[in-house]
C-alpha cells in the first residue's frame, strides 16, 4: 500500500523528476520575485515598466517552451500569438467598446482556437519544415494586417496602450498605474506558470514528453498524437495570446530594440525569437528556465548596456547578440538548468548527439 501511496504522491512530479526539477525551483523563483517587491519602490518607474514587460514576455516564453521543449513541435512563429492577443483585444475595444475584462479573455480564447486552426495543417510537418512554416505564419499575417490598414491601423497599429486592466487601474494616477501593472503582471505570470506547470506534470504532460521523445513509439502505445499535439499548440496559443493582450493594455509602446523596419514591426519578430533565446539560456523543457532566461535577456539588454556601457544602439545590439550567441554555445542545456542539475547531483547522461560530437572532434573512425 505504501508503495502505491508513494507513487501516487510522486506521480504528479513524474515527468518532472528527470525532465524538470521538482516544483521547488519554480516555487523559489516566484518567491524570489515576490520578495523583491518591497524594493520596487526604489526603482525608477520606467524601470518598472520594463519589469512588467519582462513578466509578460516570460509568459510568452513559458507557453512556447511547453510546445517546443515539452512536446517537441519546433515553432519559430510564437509572435503570432502575441499579435493575435494584442490585436483581438484592441479591435474589440476600439470597435465594439467592450470592457477590458471581457476582451482579454476573449483574446486568450481566440489564441486557443486559432492555434488549433493553424495546428491542424501543421501536424504533418516535422522538424525543419515545421520550423520554416511556423516562421512564415506571422510574417504572412503581417502582410494582411498592413493591407487592411483601415481596420488594423497600418504601420503604427492601433494606438497603445489601451485602457488598463482591470478598469480600475485607469482611475489611478499614471505613476500608481505603473506599479499596479507590475504587480498585475507578476500575478499573471505566477498563475500562468503554475497552470502550465500543472499541465506539464500531469498525465497529459507525460504524453507530451512521449511525443517529444518518440512520436512513433507514442503512437504504438495507442496515443492519438495529433490530438495531443493540437492540445499543446492550443494551450501554448492560449497563454501566448493572453500575454499579448495584456501587453497591449499595459506596455507603453511596442518599442523594444527594434531590429526590423517597417511592416514587420506590427508583430515584432522579437517576440518569436526572445522566447527561444530565453528557453535555451534558462533550460529548454523546464518551466522555470524560460522565466529566468527572459530575465537574463532583458536585464542584460537594458540594465547592463544602459548603465555600465553606454554605447550607440547598433554597437550595443551587436555586442549584446554576440554575447547571447556565446552564452548559448557555452551552455546549450541552459544556464539555470546546468546549475540546477549540478546542485541536484544529477549526472548528465550521454546522449547520442554528444557521442557523435565527441567523435567528430576527435575525427577518428571508430568501430
Amino acid at each position, binding site marked *: 500500500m505504501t508503495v502505491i501511496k508513494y507513487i501516487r504522491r510522486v506521480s504528479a512530479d513524474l515527468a518532472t523528476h528527470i525532465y524538470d526539477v521538482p516544483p521547488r525551483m519554480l516555487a523559489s523563483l516566484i518567491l524570489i520575485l515576490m520578495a523583491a517587491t518591497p524594493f520596487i519602490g526604489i526603482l525608477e518607474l520606467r524601470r518598472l515598466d520594463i519589469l512588467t514587460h519582462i513578466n509578460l514576455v516570460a509568459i510568452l516564453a513559458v507557453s512556447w517552451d511547453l510546445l517546443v521543449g515539452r512536446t517537441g513541435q519546433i515553432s519559430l512563429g510564437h509572435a503570432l500569438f502575441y499579435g493575435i492577443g494584442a490585436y483581438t483585444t484592441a479591435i474589440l475595444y476600439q470597435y465594439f467598446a467592450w470592457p477590458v475584462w471581457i476582451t482579454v479573455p476573449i483574446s486568450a480564447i481566440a489564441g486557443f482556437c486559432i492555434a488549433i486552426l493553424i495546428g491542424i495543417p501543421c501536424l504533418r510537418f516535422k522538424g525543419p*519544415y515545421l520550423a520554416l512554416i511556423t516562421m512564415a505564419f506571422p510574417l504572412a499575417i503581417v*502582410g494582411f494586417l*498592413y493591407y487592411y490598414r483601415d481596420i488594423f491601423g497600418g504601420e503604427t497599429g492601433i494606438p497603445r496602450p489601451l485602457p488598463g486592466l482591470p478598469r480600475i487601474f485607469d482611475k489611478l494616477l499614471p505613476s500608481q498605474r505603473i506599479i499596479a501593472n507590475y504587480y498585475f503582471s507578476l500575478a499573471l505570470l505566477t498563475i500562468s506558470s503554475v497552470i502550465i506547470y500543472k499541465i506539464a506534470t500531469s498525465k497529459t504532460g507525460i504524453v507530451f514528453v512521449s511525443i517529444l521523445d518518440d512520436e512513433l513509439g507514442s503512437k504504438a502505445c495507442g496515443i492519438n498524437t495529433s490530438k495531443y499535439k493540437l492540445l499543446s499548440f492550443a494551450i501554448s496559443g492560449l497563454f501566448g495570446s493572453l500575454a499579448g493582450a495584456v501587453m497591449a493594455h499595459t506596455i507603453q509602446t511596442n518599442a523594444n530594440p527594434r531590429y526590423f523596419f517597417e511592416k514587420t514591426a506590427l508583430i515584432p519578430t522579437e517576440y518569436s*525569437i526572445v522566447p527561444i533565446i530565453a*528557453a535555451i539560456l534558462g533550460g529548454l523543457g523546464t518551466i522555470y528556465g524560460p522565466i529566468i532566461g527572459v530575465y537574463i535577456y532583458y536585464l542584460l539588454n537594458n540594465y547592463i548596456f544602459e548603465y555600465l556601457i553606454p554605447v550607440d544602439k*547598433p554597437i550595443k545590439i551587436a555586442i549584446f547578440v554576440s554575447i547571447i*550567441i556565446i552564452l548559448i*554555445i557555452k551552455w546549450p542545456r541552459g544556464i539555470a538548468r546546468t546549475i540546477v542539475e549540478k546542485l541536484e547531483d544529477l549526472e548528465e547522461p550521454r546522449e547520442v548527439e554528444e557521442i557523435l560530437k565527441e567523435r567528430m572532434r576527435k575525427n577518428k573512425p571508430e568501430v
Partner: protein
Amino acid sequence: MLEVIIIEGLIIGLILALVALGFTLVYGISGIINLAHGAYFVIGAYIYEIIRQYLSNIIPLEYYYLTPISSILITCAITSFIGSLFYRITCHHILGDEVAILIVSICSCIVFQQLIYISLGKLNAFSFRIEPIFPGKIKLINIELFAGQTIAALVSFAAFAVLSILILKTKTGKAMRALSQDVEAAMLMGISVERLYTITAAISSGLASLGGIFYTASITFGVGSYMWLTALALSFTVVILGGLGSIKGSLLGGLILGLTQIATMKIIPGSGVLQDSIPFIVIIVILLVRPKGLFGKRVEIE
C-alpha cells in the same frame, strides 16, 4: 502576355532558385537549418557593390565588363571565408542541438545587420543602391527583358550545373553525398566530417552571396541590412516547394515561385503591397496542398 509571364517568371525563378541553393545544400549535407544564410545574402550584396565601385575607378573603360565579374568573384571568396569562419566558431560546437543552432544563426543575422549599420551608417543600412550588373535591355522573341536579369539567370543555371557536377563527380562531392545519407557510416569510411562541414559552409555561404548579388543587382537594384529576412523568406518558400536538401528541388521550387510572383504581379493589379508577403502566402497555400514538397531530404541531383 502568357509568354511574358513564363519567360520573366523563369528568369526570376532561376535567380530565386540560386538564392535558396546554399540553404538547401547546407541542410542536405549537414542537417543544419542555417538561418545565417540570410546574412550572407546581405553581406554579399554590400561587399559586391563596395568592391565594384572601387574597381570601376581602377579598371580602364575598355575592360568594363571585368568590373562586375571580378567583383563577384572577390565577394564570393570573401563571403565564403566569413561563412566558414562563422561556422567553425559557432555551429560546429552545438551540432546536435537544432534549436540552439536556429537561434545562433538568426542571432548572427542580427549581428551582421548591426555591423553594417555601424560601418556604413544609418542611411546605407536602410537602403543601399546597387548598380545593375549589366544595364539595358535585350530582346528575346520580341519580349523586352532586363539584360542584367537574363544574364544573372543564365549564370544561376550554370551555377546549378557546376554544383551538380561537383557533387556527382568529384571526390569531395561524393563525400558530401555520403554525409547526407549517413554520417556515421561516412565517418567509418574515413571521411573527415569536420572538414567537409566546413567546406559545405564555405560553398553555401558563397552561393548565398552570389544569390544576394544577383537578386539585389538585377531585381531590386538595392539592398538593406534587414533584407536577410527577405532572403530567408524566399529560401523557405523555394525549399518547401521543392523539398529541403534537394538541389533539383531548389531549382524547381525557385522556378515555381518565380512564375507565381510574376503571374501575381501581372494579373492582380495593386498587389505590390502584398509583394513581400507573397512568398509566405505561397508557403501556406502549399502546406494545405502538398506538405512535403516535391522532393525529399537527400542531396539528390538527377
